[in-house]
Structures are given as C-alpha cells and as structure tokens.
C-alpha cells in the first residue's frame, strides 16, 4: 500500500488556534496557581484525605503550641498507641508540654522528616527523639503509600525522586496542584453538617488512640479494642504477609531515615530507634516463608547500619521481654492502655539511665547498647 493512502491532512481544515477566551482562562489559572500556594497547608476537612492526619498533628500539636518540647516521639500509629505522654513527662520530671507525641498514622521516615523540616522550632530545645520503626516503612510498595501527603508536602526535588506513575503525578501536581489543593465540596459540606465536639477543632481527628478519653472518632474501650483494631490486614500473620511478602527495599525511605537522623544529630538530639514487641504470630509467619525471612533480615541489617554514632537501637522481639502476654496485644503491635503505661515507663527508664536529658548536648554521647 502506498504511504500516501495511509496518511493525510484532510481532516483538520484549519490550523488549530487557541481562542482569546482560552488565553484569558489560562492567565486566570496561572494567577490562581501562584495565588493559592499558601492554601496547600490548610487542613483538609475530610478524614478520607490522608493529609488530614499530618496536618492535625502539625497544626494542633506543633504550630498551636508555644512551648518547646524536650522529648519528641516520631513514627507511626504504633507510637500513638505505645506512649502515654503525660506519664512519660511525670516519669522524667518534665512539664507535660515538654513531651510531645508526634507520630503520623501510617507514617514513614519521610513523613517525620517533613514534620521536622517544616517545623524547625521542634528541634530548638529537643534533647531526645524516640522513633518507632517497623518493616512496612522500608518496603517500596508502601513508599508514599499515603500519596496525598506526598503530593502536598513534596518539593519538586522530592517529586522527581519518586518512581513511575508517582513521579509523573507528583511533578504534574507541583505545576498544577490538582491533588494537594483539592478540597471536594462534599468534604466541606459534610463537615459543616456533621460537626462533633472533640479535642481538636477538626472534630473527627483520629489522632488519639482509641482508648484515650479524648479520642473522638472512632473510640473503643479496652475491651473493644481488639475487635476495633483487628481488621483483617492488622492480624499478625496477615500483617507479616502484607508488609514482608514481596519486600522491595525502599532506598528513598532509607535515605529519608538517614536524613532524619542527620538532622537530629546536627541539633544534638539523642535518638532511640525502637520497635515495640510484635505479636509472636508475626515472627512465626515470617519464619515460615523464606522471602519474608529474608525481608526481615534486610530490615534488621539496615537498622543496624544506621544505628550507632549517637543513635541507639532497641528492638523487642517478644512480648515476654517486657512482661507482656501475646493475648494482651489486640493486633500485631498496637497497645492497649495498660501496656502503653508499662512501655512508657520502660522508655522513661532508658532515657534516665542514659542521662540524655541531663546532657547539654547529645552529640558525642556514649555509644548505645543496641538490643
């Protein structure tokens, strides 16, 4: 067949032109793009939007509190459930405002790094940082698992470091913030309609653990906790499969953890990376499957690699090490209040023993005794 019979320019009878009205619309959009930049940081009113968790922590537990903390807890919901901050403050003879529990539910090192970079005042007086870790944080499948946060907080350089479709979307979002500025009308309207009284102005904050008296949504008594937390994916064996199966080590989250530790070190903050005891079924499941065993080994070896040089690593593998019974854990690792109190006291004892709060600066402190 001749080439000319395949190609033709007969359809478009005019050279496509952009109409003047479209130019005006484009100009308005460009002005809008730069004009609304500060709105990126507004809390999203919808619990469905994942930036909400980050911004609730940032706004109501950092920006709106004038006192500077001396002890900060970072990480994931595991820390949310593992600490009773006011108890830790009492144990360390500090005012309550000096201890700040700042984990992000579903968080990873990148989220904690963002929190500190965006809020340097957190580091002005800080002496100790307790960072919880768990394998999913270093699994690339979970990398930026909460994309809403990533799209909102990423600089253009961060966006360019993402991979594949995430990179395309993140870079596109930087130019036209269709993810980070989106506030569906539904979310605002539902929030107006469905106000609840609570601790923080954004009423549905799930920031506190379910057992906390100030928890607003959802809330569960200690007896109900197991049922409330043990969604299928959070059952110990399932959690092992989910986070260790097909484990693809995330260099970006590893870099984020290194950067986070470097930032803390530069400010003289003593760091304890900790993993509270997980349910024995988690490890039992991982032991059954070679790929999960390898993933766990990779995870631990990385933690060893970043520990030392002012960073203490404390991993409790069995509940019994802290006097917990496996049946006390409602899921793979979130703690009920009773265990949280014990865990908090244990951590307070470590901080006292190391004398981290006594030292004027933590740089050059004694090597931690890992595990």
């Amino acid at each position: 067949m001749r080439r000319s019979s395949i190609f033709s320019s007969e359809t478009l009878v005019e050279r496509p032109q952009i109409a003047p009205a479209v130019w005006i619309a484009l100009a308005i959009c460009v002005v809008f793009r730069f004009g609304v930049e500060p709105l990126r940081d507004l809390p999203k009113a919808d619990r469905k939007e994942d930036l909400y968790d980050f911004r609730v922590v940032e706004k109501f537990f950092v920006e709106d509190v004038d006192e500077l903390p001396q002890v900060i807890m970072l990480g994931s919901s595991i820390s949310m459930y593992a600490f009773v901050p006011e108890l830790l403050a009492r144990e360390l003879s500090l005012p309550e405002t000096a201890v700040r529990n700042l984990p992000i539910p579903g968080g990873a090192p990148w989220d904690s790094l963002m929190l500190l970079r965006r809020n340097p005042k957190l580091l002005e007086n800080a002496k100790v940082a307790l960072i919880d870790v768990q394998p999913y944080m270093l699994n690339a499948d979970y990398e930026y698992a909460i994309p809403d946060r990533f799209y909102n907080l990423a600089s253009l350089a961060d966006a360019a470091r993402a991979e594949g479709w995430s990179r395309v979307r993140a870079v596109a979002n930087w130019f036209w913030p269709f993810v980070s500025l989106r506030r569906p009308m539904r979310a605002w309207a539902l929030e107006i309609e469905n106000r609840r009284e609570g601790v923080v102005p954004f009423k549905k904050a799930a920031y506190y653990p379910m057992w906390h008296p100030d928890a607003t949504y959802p809330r569960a008594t200690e007896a109900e906790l197991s049922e409330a937390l043990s969604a299928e994916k959070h059952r110990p064996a399932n959690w092992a499969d989910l986070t260790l199966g097909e484990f693809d080590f995330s260099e970006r989250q590893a870099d984020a953890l290194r950067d986070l530790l470097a930032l803390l070190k530069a400010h003289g903050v003593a760091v304890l990376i900790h993993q509270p005891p997980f349910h024995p079924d988690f490890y039992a499941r991982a032991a059954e499957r070679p790929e999960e065993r390898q993933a766990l080994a990779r995870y631990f070896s990385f933690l060893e690699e970043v520990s030392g040089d002012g960073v203490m690593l404390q991993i409790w593998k069995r509940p019994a090490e802290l006097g917990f019974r496996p049946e006390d854990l409602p899921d793979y690792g979130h703690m009920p209040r009773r265990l949280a109190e014990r865990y908090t006291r244990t951590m307070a004892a470590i901080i006292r023993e190391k004398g981290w709060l006594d030292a004027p600066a933590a740089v050059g402190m004694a090597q931690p005794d890992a595990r």
Partner: protein
Amino acid sequence: MLFNSFVFVAFLAIVLPLYYGLSHRWQNRMLVVASYVFYGFWDWRFCSLLLLSTLVDYSCGLALSNRPAGQRRNILLVSLAVNLGVLGFFKYFNFFVDSFRALLEPLGLAGAGPALDIVLPVGISFYTFQTLAYTIDVYRGRQEATRDFTGFALYVSFFPQLVAGPIERSTHLLPQLQKVRRVDNAMLASGAQLMLMGYVKKVGIADAVAPYVNPAFADPGAQSAGTLLFSLYLFALQIYCDFSGYSDIARGVSRLLGIDLMINFKQPYLSRDITEFWRRWHISLSTWLRDYLYIPLGGNRVGSFATYRNLMLTMLLGGLWHGAAWTFVVWGGLHGLYLAVHRRLIAGRRRPDLPPAPAGPGEWSAALLRMVLTFNLVCLTWIFFRADTFPQAWAYLTGIVAGDPSLDFAGRVLAFAFFGGIVLLLDVGCWLEDRELPIAPTLPVWVRGVVYAAAFLFLSFVGESDVAPFIYFQF
C-alpha cells in the same frame, strides 16, 4: 476505561493526533481498534460479544438487501433472536429465574431452576439497541444495507458512545462514518466546551452529591423526613449530571473527531409536564422506544384505550431496559401512568414538541409552578429507580411522608441549593435560547474566559478525586 480517568486522557492523547494524521479509510480502521481497546479495558472477553453483534447485523443487513420479501422477515427475526437472546441471557436470565422461583415458592417448589453467576457486559443494552435499529431500518427500507464492514464495525463500537449512548441511528451516524470528516476550529471549540461541561457535571456535581444520597437510601428508616426528601432531590441532580455529563463528554469527544452525535438531554428538569420531560430526557432512548416499539404497537392511532395500553407497555419495557429488577418496571410503570394521565388531560389539543419559553409574568408563574410539580413527580419515580428493593423504596416513601420531622437536614438543603444552582446556571441559558452550549459564543470574550477558568478550577480543586463509574454503565 472511564472518561473520568487519567487512562482515558492518555488514550485520547494518542488517538486524536493519530486520527488527524490518517486518511479516512485508516481513520476508521484505527478507530475500530481504539474502540475495542477502550471496551476491552473492562473485560477483553466481552469484545467477542461486540464482534458477534457486528457480524450478525452486518450479515443480516446484506441479506435483507438482496432477498425476496418472504424471506426478509425471517432474516429480521434472526437478528432479533441473536441480539435479544444475548441481551436476555446476560441481563435478564437470573431475573426471570428468580421471578419464576418466587412464583413457585407458594406451591412448595422453592429452589427450582438454575442460578448462574453472570457478569453483565458493560453497555450491552446500548449497543444492542443501536445494532437492532440498523437491521430494523434496513428491513423497513429506511436505511440502505452497508457493504462497508469497517464503517459498520465502527458504527457498532464507536468508543465515545459505546457504553452509555447516545443510542445512535444508523441513518444519522453511519453516513458520517462513511465520508471524509472535516474538523474546523469551531468544532474543536464546541467539542472542548462540551467535554469541559460534561466533566463539571460528572466530577464536580454528580460524584460530589453521591455521599449525601447513598446513606439515605442505604437506611431510610434511620433518616428524618427532610433528609430523605432533600436526598431524593439530590439524587435527581446526581442521575441527571452523571448521565448527561457522560453524554456531553461523548458528544464532545466525537466532535473533536468531526462526528456529530445526537443531543441526549435538553434541560429535562425545566419541563412543564411529563410529556415534555420525555422529550428532553434520554432522548435517544425515548425516540428509540417511540420508533421501534410504541409506533409498531399502533402508537396513538388505534383508539384511546389502545393508546394508553401502548404507552404503558412502552414505558414498562423502557423500565425493564434499565435493569433486571421489578423496581425498574415500577419506575417505568409510573412514567407510563403519568404519560397516560397527561395525555388524557390534554386530549385533543395539539402542541409543539417543545413549547416555547413563557412570555409574560403570568405565563412565567404558571410555567414555574408546573416545572416544580413535574420535577416532584419525576422525583417520586426516582425512589423506585434508586432503591434496590421494594421494601427499601417503601421505607423511603413512607419516611418522607410520615418520618421523623426533626430539622437536621440543613446541610442537604445547602447542598441542593448549591449544586442545583450550578445546574440551573448551566441549563437556563440553553433552555431560553434553545441552544446547545452553556457558554454562548455571543458572550463577551472576557466573560467566556472567566467562565472557562471557573469551570476548570472547579473541576481541578473542588471536584471529587475518586474515579467513580458512571451510573448508566450498569444498564
């Protein structure tokens, strides 16, 4: 592949430039391939149904054109049997088996009859009706049988309107597919505007309204009367914006390809009576039912009783077309009843298809009252359309009439005012001036620019981020 997904944007970004660079014959070939890819995104296995429908009706069309009158009827029956057989199997098999079981249950024969796990191929009702129309038109001599297989395959599978219409007639679409298309800047501009407005309706309104509607229908007994009423009004907006939004996007994409699809919606909620409503709502289906069901049944030329019977039958089957459930039959039945009553009320009076806009204050007042009444009558039928079961529909209906009178529905009133206001803004100008595009080309340039920007910003930052399928895909 959903219109409101990034995959579709990427798909279009490949198809359009390719299309503009190809000659007519290759354009059609490429569009057929693109259409099958588009359809195969849901489930590639169902492409075989599309192909079967194409082969059967293409062959029947050719056979009809060169057979004596005596055999023509049998050929038509073959087409009807294959098309309606496939549709009946995939869409209605379990419905009839379940209904049959329910009938036998009082006789102690429960459990009789097979139950199959059948997946409904998306858009099957739409393309089945479209191909059937072709064969019937060839049979009636209104359409010449085409020998252009690629053109016919494209007529059946044309991706913009494949899964949710408009249900095109071969007399309108086929000639456009068989000639060289010309696209000028005016067509590009109007196509782009139709797409933009379609997305605003779907993403900005229909998807945003759904969270109000879903809980109300899920548990009507737990809602106050006001919540149920305004959720119903919001559902009326949702279904309109969802479906007409799809039609607008389909027509916009087609226009970018130089192909004109029929108008499917003409501001239906501004209708002053139910007859006018059906001339403005899902026009491609209502005219299909009129031409291929109502008129063959005798239409309105067979005496009063038969006319009412024909109206009722047409609407009952129209209801069943939407879904294999008795709630849809009741929905159609209610519309049939409305149409019959209205026909009785206006007996003997001739009236234009679409009455002109009111002239003075008196006419306006009367028109507004009639619009409100018609809207509420239509909303009543939406209860049966949206409810999954009769008990649910009944609970909804009784909840509105005799439910908890508490005043906890302010959010829904606000939402209805807000989203209804946007729909009015989009529709009123078109209704008054009988035009197609909400943003009139006669408006000053800066006003159009501001409206385009506002629509785009609304879509970008206020619309829903979740990709929700179009409601009519399930039909």
